[in-house]
């Protein structure tokens, strides 16, 4: 696009190029004033030798009233239509593969609390329609999205899979629907339509990095689409539609050569570069993007570790004394010098704050691709900030009849100063909200809810401050449990148990083949007292990056628990076949005997029997008739009149048969 059109012989071609140009200018003009697109990539080394890459694309469209009607330049038309058709106020759709490791990858930063999602598909949406139309809108929305993203989101249509909730998960005033499909397999077929929503697709800009094999080889892959629109806000400022697309991947750089050297003590972190983890380089920005930046984030813990390292180095060798800050830090080396460096503004944490390096990729091109590399020089060990309580959920009990869902919390040893700074009281309380959707085939008994704090059973009223339960209805709606728990701050471990019965499914509700079990979707655990926000000191606030401003937003710490698998009783599906066979046999016997009774004439039969019995027979037939008479339960009458021809089996015949058979056996035996 940036190349100037050459003069050619054909006028027609020139003409066409001019048309082309004019459209480009038009696009540019509109971008500048109305629709905006920005692309950003955040890279972050993780403590367990992995690298987090977080792509963030944001497209905004002005409100309908100020733009050119239904025409869009950058904003995907499909999404705009969807918003207008179903009056979506807010919506979030995520496709995730793998599990976010809250212990090692962090649970207390904006990335983890907004981008760590349960495996499979999660969708929630807020509609701006009257209450009675919400369900219909949801149904239509799920169908549209399933078409748009090549996924079976339409299974969320049935009321057994989605639920409404009051206050637990997302503060909204009704009209919110929430549903998850833990079983959905996520792959490129879902990524491609997602990329199609970007103005440059994956042809240029940062999205060109998304090499499918390398991103799906990762340990975690989550693509997210978040939509806010204020089209239908009755009051307040109209900001149009904001479409935020984020892709979070956790990748493992290859590090076999390096790990050998330090295997005795702490290992050196693997070095990586964009080309080594993605297999591609950034060959320039998406020309339609307003901002196109790459960030490298160093966590608080890492910065502390590096500072310690620097101090040690200062003591041992005075080489690095002159260099200021962490720009020439001893721990690692960057292949590209950053354009800017931000420090996190933190008032709470006394220790060091995290650092963000910014690279603007506007000046890179195909000839000079951007390939950020990070080479570690010394091993650094650090840990991620974690949520105040580590939560895990599991099933208890065995057998096909009943079980127990347990959610256990363990304290993650937050710094005490942090807790006290946050609340600053002696009798402080740690609040945790739980939002749990239970499918109807798990018949949860909410009265059996029990709470244990530090290994002691606790009265529910002491801990549970607020509770909202809507029991499930068979084949109608799932059960929803929302709890507000208040633990004492010094809590070390806590557990919640909820008993359930495993229900029976109708035959057509089972999957067609033998199954591994049924899923209980993740519970959402929210810590509303703890806000994640990262505020970076920036030089000028005029061209604020959308991702960083997103980080600044205060949002509660949120984590998802594991998906659970409940093995339900699976009937033997060959049983219908057996039943059919047995009933057919019974029917045949019944009708056979009925017919027999109907057409039998007893007197006639006895006469015939007498006649036949009176005929003389050989020894064997005599025996046979004796036996048959015995079987019939009659007295055997000895034959009276002689007869020869009519007897079916005569002794001579039998003798002949035996002789022939013997000869045959003999012949066979000796011919072999």
């Amino acid at each position, binding site marked *: 696009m940036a190349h100037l059109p050459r003069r050619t012989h054909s006028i027609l071609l020139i003409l066409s190029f001019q048309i082309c140009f004019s459209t480009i200018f038009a696009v540019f003009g509109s971008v500048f004033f109305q629709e905006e697109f920005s692309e950003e990539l955040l890279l972050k080394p993780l403590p367990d030798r992995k690298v987090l890459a977080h792509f963030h694309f944001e497209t905004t469209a002005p409100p309908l009233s100020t733009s050119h009607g239904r025409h869009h330049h950058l904003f995907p038309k499909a999404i705009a239509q969807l918003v207008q058709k179903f009056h979506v106020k807010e919506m979030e759709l995520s496709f995730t593969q793998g599990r976010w490791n809250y212990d090692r990858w962090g649970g207390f930063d904006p990335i983890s609390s907004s981008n760590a999602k349960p495996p499979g598909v999660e969708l929630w949406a807020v509609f701006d329609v009257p209450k009675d139309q919400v369900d219909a809108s949801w149904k239509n929305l799920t169908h549209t999205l399933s078409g748009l993203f090549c996924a079976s989101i339409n299974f969320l249509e049935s009321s057994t899979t989605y639920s409404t909730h009051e206050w637990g998960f997302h503060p909204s005033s009704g009209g919110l629907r929430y549903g998850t499909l833990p079983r959905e397999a996520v792959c490129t077929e879902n990524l491609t339509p997602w990329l199609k929503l970007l103005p440059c697709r994956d042809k240029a800009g940062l999205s060109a990095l998304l090499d499918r094999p390398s991103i799906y080889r990762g340990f975690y892959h989550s693509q997210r689409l978040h939509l806010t629109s204020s089209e239908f806000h009755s009051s307040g400022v109209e900001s149009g539609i904001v479409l935020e697309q984020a892709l979070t991947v956790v990748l493992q750089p290859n590090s076999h050569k390096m790990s050998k050297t330090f295997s005795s003590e702490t290992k050196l972190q693997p070095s990586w570069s964009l080309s080594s983890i993605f297999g591609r380089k950034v060959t320039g920005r998406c020309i339609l993007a307003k901002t196109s930046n790459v960030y490298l984030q160093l966590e608080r813990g890492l910065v502390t570790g590096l500072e310690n390292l620097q101090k040690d180095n200062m003591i041992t060798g005075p080489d690095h004394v002159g260099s200021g800050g962490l720009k020439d830090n001893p721990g690692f080396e960057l292949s590209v010098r950053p354009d800017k460096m931000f420090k996190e503004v933190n008032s709470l944490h006394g220790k060091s704050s995290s650092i963000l390096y910014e690279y603007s990729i506007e000046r890179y091109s195909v000839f000079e691709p951007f390939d950020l590399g990070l080479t570690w020089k010394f091993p650094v060990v650090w840990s991620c900030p974690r949520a105040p309580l*580590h939560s895990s959920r599991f099933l208890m*009990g065995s057998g096909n009849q009943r079980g127990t869902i347990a959610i256990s919390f363990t304290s993650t040893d937050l710094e005490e100063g942090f807790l006290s700074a946050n609340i600053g009281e002696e009798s402080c309380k740690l609040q945790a909200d739980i939002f749990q959707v239970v499918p109807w085939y798990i018949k949860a008994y909410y009265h059996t809810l029990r709470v244990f704090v530090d290994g002691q059973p606790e009265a529910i009223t002491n801990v549970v401050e607020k509770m909202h339960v809507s029991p499930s209805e068979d084949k109608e709606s799932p059960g929803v449990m929302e709890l507000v728990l208040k633990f004492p701050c010094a809590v070390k471990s806590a557990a919640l148990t909820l008993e359930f019965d495993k229900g029976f499914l109708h035959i057509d509700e089972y999957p067609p083949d033998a199954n591994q079990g049924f899923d209980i979707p993740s519970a959402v655990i929210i810590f509303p007292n703890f806000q994640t926000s990262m505020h970076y000191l920036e030089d000028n606030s005029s061209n604020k990056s959308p991702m960083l401003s997103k980080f600044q937003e205060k949002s509660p710490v949120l984590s998802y628990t594991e998906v659970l698998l409940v093995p339900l009783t699976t009937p033997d599906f060959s049983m219908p076949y057996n039943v059919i066979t047995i009933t057919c046999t019974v029917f045949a016997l019944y009708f056979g005997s009925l017919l027999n009774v109907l057409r039998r004439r007893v007197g006639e039969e006895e006469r015939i029997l007498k006649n036949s019995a009176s005929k003389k027979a050989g020894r064997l037939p005599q025996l046979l008739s004796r036996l048959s008479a015995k079987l019939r339960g009659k007295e055997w009458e000895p034959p009276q009149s002689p007869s020869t021809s009519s007897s079916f089996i005569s002794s001579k015949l039998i003798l002949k048969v035996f002789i022939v058979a013997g000869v045959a056996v003999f012949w066979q035996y000796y011919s072999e």
Partner: protein
Amino acid sequence: MGESESENEAPKVKLRPIVRLGMFLISHSHLLSVVCCTAGVLTLLLLPLLAKNTYISENALMPGSANPMLSSQEVSEANGLVKDLTSLDLKRMASGIESQRLIAQYMSNLGAEVSFQKFYPQSNQFHPLHFFSSPDSATIRENISCSSYGLNTVGIIRAPRGDGKEAIVLVTPYNSEKIGLGEALSLGIAYSVFSLLTRVTWLAKDIIWVVADSKYGEYAAVDAWLRDYYIPVFSGLGIQNAEMCHGLEENTIRERNMRDGFKRAGTMAAALVIKVADRSEQFEDSLSIYAEASNGQMPNLDLINIVNYLAVHRQGLRIKVEKMWSLLNCKWLKILGEILESLGHLAKNLNPQWKFGIPAADYVEGTATLTSSLYYQALGIPTGPHGAFRDYQVDAVTLEISSRVSSNNKGRQNDFLLRGGRLIEGVIRSVNNLLEKFHQSFFLYLLTSPSKFLSVGVYMITFALLVSSLPMVAASLYAHANNLDPSFEKNESNHPASAADELGITLRSWKWLYAAKKVLVVHLWGAVVLLLPYFICQIPNCTPTTSFVVWVLLSIFSLLILFWILGSPFSYVYASQPQQREWALLKSVTISAAFIGLCLMSVINFATAEIGALLMVPMCLMAHPLKLDVKSRKLRNFSRVACNLALGFIGFPPTAFLVFKGVFEGFDGISVGDFWNWLESIWAWSSATYLYIGMIHLPCWILCIHVILHPC
């Protein structure tokens, strides 16, 4: 029979065919019962011929379709672990916790999540009411001393792209106090697989590696871990005790994190217990498979099939299944095998498509394997730590690998680790492929060799044949006892039946109730006998022989008391009546009770029912009062007396046990105390066989003896 009555009536009433068939069966019950019994025994002997080759039923398993990825690199790492463990043992410094720490260190270096699980040994106590109850979390742990606890080390690999709903479990039991080379090697095999699995991309299920501390027994450690996994206790003693007993210094925060979290991964799909035998094989590396869990439950046949397939066709290991070794040298079995072989040849000559003959050696081997398979299923005691998994509906199997030479030859050991590791890797990969539960293949089967099996449809024929004669004989005895009396009366006096006579007939037709009462009382006594060992156990310093003798004496005493209280009244109310038929009624009711009991048992543990039927059915059928036989001095009667005595001797559980033990293991050094020990082990594992012996077998034997000694 009914003919004598119906003869008088002018129009013959034609009975329904089913009734006629029944009457026919009853009238020929003697012949039929003999035929059925012999056919049952014959089919039991023919079972090794009927065994089918195993095949992998579930296509998704695809064993051996991928090349093994385990390389010498993992093996050399594993060798490091083996060396560290054995040297640790040589140094003997701070035994116990040190080895667990070492293993945990190795695990966490691989990037696995590591946690420790502390457990206390549970004494084997007899809980009379704990049969069939699921494992109970509320077992009171009394007198736990801080020093005596086991420490399991658990490492979990999360599948990178999996959803964490399912997990595959690897178990390596080892004694933390004294690590043998075999145990160290088994840890090495598991470690090599584990370290491979941290890097593979195909993993869909999480991998849990449980290093079970077998200080207090392998089963106990695995069972304790499973109990914590499935039925954790949130409140109460456990945690407090753990807090109090913190004698150990925890150095780092990391280690403390390992300690307090019991880590979990989803539903278990399958479990493999890996052991390396300390003894060495003579010829080649071999693999023993143990699969029997409590009450004769078996894992899905497909799991055994995968192991068998991979071991034989990929790793070149020789597979062994448990056998009755003494049967291999059995003369008559060899002769029978040869006869069957020649019969098979003959049949093949007649028609080349008839292929039922197998070589005599195979037959003998198959019989030995089948016998042990039957015996271990009937015993109801798990044959290894895998049994603990079956209680939670997890398919599990124990693999015991033994190497050819147990020398310290380095290359040899590497090769051994590589082969073992590749086998485990292949099995895990197959199970990992599985999208659903194990469901495709058999759960009820007997093995006649590692690659041959008998499905339930085949081996139940034997049982059905044996048992089918029981109701026939019972019915015929009942019919005889009821109908012969009126015919006598008719012959004596032909006058019309008076009202008193009618009453007599109705009373007589209800006479079986008294017999039933007697049978019920004896069965109740059986329940009492079952409970007696609980009290005998409380007696301190008791040798097995004395406790057995005490048990027998108490049982006889209780039997006498019961007879004195309950048994006496009916015996003299009808003393005036001819007692001729009383024994027949009693035998009939006994046989019905035995039939019901055997059928019930066949649902719970088929193998027990089969062996029980083999012992009990001939005894029940043959029982005949000695007095009658002795009176009519004929050869036939004397042979019957001999049979009765022999069967009565064999049918008594202790003598049966001792005789079979003597036959299989040699008669020297056998004492009645062995039976007591055997019985104790059965109830300690709460096997249903114990209930069977006490509630069904023993009462039936008593009743049969009662019939034999009946004063008529």
